[in-house]
């Protein structure tokens, strides 16, 4: 099975993150950049499917030059090769433009299965799998907490996911080719090994520009974006918490609070 995993480099959500003051885009220069956490689960799932069914795993990233670090990190976990779409004109692209670029890049690999994280920790819009599926005319199975692959012997497969919902899960199936997005409940990603890190240096990374993909620069980037961040402000300082005084009904109040925050 030919699998592509979408991997995005994002600012570390555990560290201080900012938007740029000049164009209100995510500040990627001064941040510590890491692989979007959810994408590591997608990589792990791809590797497990490869271990069971064979085939090839390709990492696909759209991002600036420095996203190459994240590609090497992803490859050190085990995928075979990578495609890096890099072009200065891509800066500030919205989700719609990104999906156009990724769909074009996916066309060069011709995958049976496209895996990605359910959301990225910087954008959190969760629309990429749907947009890609729409553009490519294939099915989108989104928000998987479990994925089963039944190969049909003719190179294709039936994919079944447990789609995580607030109440439980739904079972959704599709046949390949398809896009599947995963949550962090799906598996436990492996650590890269030292050998994996060494091997990653020798794995092929194909670099593609907008011209290579035949996409005019005007259709992407800040200028081509349908949505734009007009202004931004720092998050207000944290408010004092709620104090619950136990007047015999402390337990009830606590549960009410937890329920209002959707913890229970």
């Amino acid at each position: 099975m030919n699998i592509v995993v979408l991997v995005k480099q994002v600012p570390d959500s555990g560290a201080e993150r900012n938007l740029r003051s000049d164009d209100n885009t995510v500040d990627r220069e001064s941040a510590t950049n890491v692989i979007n956490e959810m994408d590591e689960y997608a990589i792990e799932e791809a590797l497990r499917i490869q271990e069971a069914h064979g085939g090839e795993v390709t990492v696909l990233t759209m991002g600036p030059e420095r996203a190459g670090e994240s590609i090497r990190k992803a490859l050190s976990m085990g995928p075979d090769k990578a495609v890096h779409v890099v072009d200065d004109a891509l800066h500030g692209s919205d989700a719609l433009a990104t999906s156009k670029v990724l769909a074009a890049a996916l066309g060069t690999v011709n995958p049976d299965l496209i895996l990605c994280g359910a959301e990225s920790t910087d954008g959190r819009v969760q629309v990429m799998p749907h947009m890609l599926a729409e553009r490519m005319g294939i099915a989108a199975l989104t928000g998987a907490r479990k994925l089963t692959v039944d190969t049909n012997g003719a190179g294709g497969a039936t994919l079944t996911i447990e789609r995580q919902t607030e109440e439980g899960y739904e079972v959704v199936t599709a046949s390949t080719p398809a896009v599947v997005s995963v949550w962090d409940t799906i598996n436990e990603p492996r650590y890269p090994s030292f050998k994996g890190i060494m091997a990653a240096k020798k794995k092929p990374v194909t670099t593609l520009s907008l011209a290579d993909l035949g996409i005019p620069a005007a259709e992407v980037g800040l200028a081509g974006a349908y949505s734009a961040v007009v202004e931004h402000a720092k998050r207000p300082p944290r408010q004092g918490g709620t104090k619950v005084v136990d007047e015999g009904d402390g337990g009830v109040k606590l549960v009410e609070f937890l329920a209002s925050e959707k913890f229970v």
Partner: protein
Amino acid sequence: MGVERLLPTEEAGQLLELTRELADRELAPRAAEYEQRGEFPRELLRLLGRSGLLGLPYPEEYGGAGQPYEVYLQVLEELAYRWLAVAEAVSVHTLSCHPVAKYGTELQRKRLPEMLGGELLGAICLSEPQGGSDAAHLTTRAVREGDYYTVSGTKAWITHAGQADFYSVFCRTGGPGASGVSCLLVDAGTPGVLPQARERTMGLRSSPVAQIVFDDARVPADRLVGEEGRGFRIAMDALDAGRLGIAACAVGLAQAALDYATEYAREREQFGRPIIEFQGLSFLLADMATQVAAARALTLAAARLKDAGRPFGVEAAKAKLFASDVAMRVTTDAVQVLGGYGYVADHPVERYMREAKALQIVEGTNQIQRLVISRAL
């Protein structure tokens, strides 16, 4: 830990980065609890093995990572910084593979990938109840009968006893003294290999230590490592390298105590200001920091000699002696910096202090190191 490291290669930098990631995420959060329960983290060692950290200084053709000691020791140091018992386990395991990797037959070396990959855990059986320092007079006997050796005797203080899959056992096949000692690679499952009840140790409680009784254990003759009578040389060779491992463990532990004490002294206030502002304490911390840096430098200097193929045994003895004494002093001082809080188990420094003591004893007591050093003067 904010240590500036000079590493020989870019790949070494990536190895250290991987080590820190694993250690921060998998070791640090578990150390205190495992120590308290006295639980051996076998699964974590498997993880380190899969990650390639259990065979670092061995050739890649045997499944190792082909790293110089200079790099391997800094990995150990980072591990010891989070959890000494795991670093010691890595050091002991790495050492237990040394006889086969360096002196083993091709047949014996066939198992190296599993050993270095961490699927099989190793231990070193040298010390005995009646003699640790005077290893040349060990009494465990191995008698050759046909295609087998029959091993009988008792080994003491064996790290990984009962957990290991194989033991590098030093035993007497010939006459008295060093020239009568040989090395056997013994499977843990061999009938007659009997690990005893665990010792109740002062520290390093997640690392099992026990006697092993060899009750006429039959070991195939092709498990002899090197020739008969070579065992003592093999043991001393392994110990030279092992001393560097212990030195690196000591540096990591001392650095952990220093960092913890420094952080505490910045936060804790007395007489209206942070206690680090009292010169009595800040100078104490300055001395601790200087000793840790000196211990690291001495250890890595000895490692670089080894990596260059030069004689390094005496320098390794100096490094082990100095670094473990530094670890003892610095951890003791760290308890002092925390005052009463240093004396209770809510903070890790009392554990560090208990752990440091072991480093002055294992792989040759510090008196024996002085013996080695003074004889070379």
